[in-house]
């Protein structure tokens, strides 16, 4: 058997090796849109990124960075939670210089473990104060807004609620999906506690459970189920529905609905970038963070990935609803009693995961 498989293995190894060859860096497609210039020669510098943002959205940005600066970029892709756990496990010996997170939770986790370094002031100042940590340990580089996604055939415009507090009404019994244990929902709920007090937030969640709110594991599955008409509406991040519409067009029957601007249901949740305390390439790491906040990259985020820009004076994509909402960056996680631990306890105790 081994004899028969060996040639197959050897061939595969060669194919793999042939695919891995590297030559003068050349970029095309979206990466070239971000950086239309000719690539500079390798600077000998390198930076290793653990990215909880997926390659579909971020790879062109990183390619453009490598092309524009000559810094060699290495990326480990994964889920933000798992990569944060990995960095915690690796401690001071982590290979990561930069950690990119889909939501603030994993960054808060690493901060509580004292693993984050301080970002250069020149980089911090590229974003508004509300979108960066007071200690200088992280910056936001794009935003996603909380919205109510609804099936347009099942819920008419006239009926639409204006606040998350409306959703506990009998009218919406059994019709609202909540991604109870999902990272961005947990982050949102933590801010909810901060803004309204733990009692009000916990009461709201318990009322939602009593009102037969339906549990889904994540934003994407809610947007997909709403598009199919399995459920009427759900609380999600704005941007998944844009991706679904971009992919399936009108066949996808769900659209976003913005709750009132000052409602907690309209919160903007940032995606965050950090430099690890143990990084030996902090110069290149800071360069990368600064690059994420340049005009071409911010434009790319809003025009290509339907996110909210946070820097360089870039205006949000006209297709996105106007932004006057609360921003999560203004919340000091440490000031919250018990922080995420308490949030996890409240969510678990509400029983939403069994709905």
């Amino acid at each position, binding site marked *: 058997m081994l004899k028969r498989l060996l040639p197959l293995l050897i061939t595969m190894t060669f194919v793999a090796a042939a695919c891995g060859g590297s030559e003068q860096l050349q970029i095309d497609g979206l990466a070239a849109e971000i950086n239309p210039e000719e690539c500079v020669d390798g600077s000998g510098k390198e930076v290793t990124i653990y990215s909880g943002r997926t390659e579909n959205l971020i790879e062109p940005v990183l390619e453009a960075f490598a092309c524009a600066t000559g810094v060699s970029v290495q990326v480990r892709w994964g889920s933000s939670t798992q990569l944060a*756990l990995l960095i915690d496990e690796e401690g001071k010996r982590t*290979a990561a210089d930069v950690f990119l997170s889909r939501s603030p939770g994993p960054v808060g986790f690493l901060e509580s473990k004292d693993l984050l370094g301080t970002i250069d002031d020149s980089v911090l100042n590229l974003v508004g104060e509300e979108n960066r940590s007071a200690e200088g340990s992280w910056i936001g580089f794009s935003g996603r807004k909380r919205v109510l996604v609804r099936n347009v055939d099942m819920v008419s415009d006239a009926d639409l609620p204006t606040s998350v507090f409306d959703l506990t009404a009998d009218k919406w019994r059994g019709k609202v999906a909540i991604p109870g244990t999902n990272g961005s929902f947990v982050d949102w709920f933590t801010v909810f506690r901060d803004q309204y007090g733990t009692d009000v937030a916990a009461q709201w969640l318990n009322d939602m459970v009593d009102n037969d709110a339906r549990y889904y594991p994540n934003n994407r599955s809610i947007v997909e189920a709403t598009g199919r008409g399995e459920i009427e509406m759900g609380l999600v991040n704005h941007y998944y529905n844009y*991706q679904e519409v*971009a992919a399936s067009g009108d066949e996808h029957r769900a659209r976003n609905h913005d709750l009132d601007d000052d409602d907690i249901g309209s919160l903007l949740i940032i995606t965050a970038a950090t430099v690890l305390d143990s990084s030996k390439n902090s110069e290149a790491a800071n360069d990368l963070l600064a690059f994420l906040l340049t005009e071409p990259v911010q434009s790319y985020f809003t025009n290509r990935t339907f996110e909210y820009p946070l820097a360089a004076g870039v205006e949000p994509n006209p297709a996105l609803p106007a932004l006057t909402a609360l921003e999560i960056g203004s919340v000091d996680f440490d000031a919250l009693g018990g922080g995420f*631990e308490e949030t996890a306890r409240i969510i678990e105790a509400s029983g939403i995961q069994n709905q």
Partner: protein
Amino acid sequence: MTRTRAPRELRTIGLIGSLAFAFPGLYLIWRNFTSGADPLGLLFDTQTLEPFWRTVRLAVLVSASAAALGTALAWCTTRTDLSFRRLWRVILPIPLVFPTFIGAAAFIRTLNPGGLANDVLGAIGINETPELRGLLGAWLVLTLFCYPYVYLPVAARLRQLPGSFEQSALILGDTAAQAFRRVVLRQISGSLTAGTLLVFLYTISDFGAVQLMRYDTLTRAIESNYLARPPMAFALSLILLIFAGLVVLAERAVNRRLPEVTSRRISQPVIYALGRWKAAATLLVGGTLLFGVIAPSAALIDWAADGLLRTQRGGRPLTINFSKVVEAATNTLTSSVITGLVALLAVAPIAFLVGRYRDRIGHVAHSIVIATFAVPGILIALSLRFWTLKSGFFGDLLYNSMALLIFAYVVRFGSLAMGTALVAVKTVPDGLHDAASTLGADRWRRFRSVDLPVMRPGLLAAAGLVILSTMKELPISLIIAPIGFPTLTTRIFGSFEDAFVAEAGIMAVVLVCASALLSWFLVLRRADHL
């Protein structure tokens, strides 16, 4: 019958092997101590107990149904005159390759309200389909994705069994059903219980399917506590592992009472003419394929086709290109095939220790290898990262290497090869061995000319299980793989996470095709003839 003491080298290898497989368990124990976790306290907490019992309930149900379905399918495709048997044998192992996070999603997308199947059913006037969720949904999806754990080893065993006992039973007046119960069931009991144990352990460790079906189990509780309450996540994981250990011991106790069959095929197996049962058997096989392979594949193809059409119409361009697909497919195939072979090499010494020598070290190693299957993949990944960091220079050497990735895969999936390899070892008749040694064959020669040919179908089924499972593995592929080593599954995950369903669909279709190819090559073509 001679039972000699195990050679010392073999026991040493077995000891090293069991240590390697114990890494995740030792890591969990260490973490429980250092993080101030309180697993005992949690055991008496209703918030833990509820998900725990739900986990047990689901695992029992899935094990029972997967055992019945896997055995029935194996029997139909190896022992009857069912049409297209060879084709079925290639396709039936495929559900193993669907990563549950996308398999269950595809399933939901196809069968739930508003899905593809609704369109089809709607056309013939059926407008109401039940929504799959909770216990029913999780049970159905996991049964369909797990039956190959039983089907593959049982089918391999069935093809190898002597027909003589069965023929005697039939001649003595037993009906086919009686002969199956009295003779065949006993002959396959080792493979059947080993496979069912895997189904049980897989079910308690699964996260992707149960979370999409919204059935709240222990793994969900673990998953949502990793960052918020790490001690709780570690304590719950330890409870899961200890429970798995107890189940493994229970299976051993049951298995010890079962009659041991140490015989190989000397006469052709009995092939039954199905007659009027043919329609029922075809329905069973066809139905399984419809729900386990065709329905999820249809959704994936639908996503892929949508994406390709979209680019034709000038819509959003795909974020992947041909060379990225080839790169990921090559990485997936290379790493999974190597893992399959290494896993065989790793568990074979343990199988010999247990099966031939009834060695104590072997028994301990066997239990460790199998119980480790219940540890969620992310914890195996983290534990290996932990141990490489603790082992200084040697760890630095391994860091970011293919070797560490393969090692992690083997620790994750070695259990799949274990049970089947053990049955294969036990299959070799002692008499044959004694005869060879009387004739002066040395140990290596005996192994090559006596053991290997007899064990080959079982070993290939074992490797097949490992390879198909490795192809879909996610957390280890993300955390332990060398940087810049994308696999099909990591690409599917990345695309699916951000609702790039077309890209995810294309990669998943490639994954299914690649698995079908391997299934044809390994499981069928080579395992067919002794």
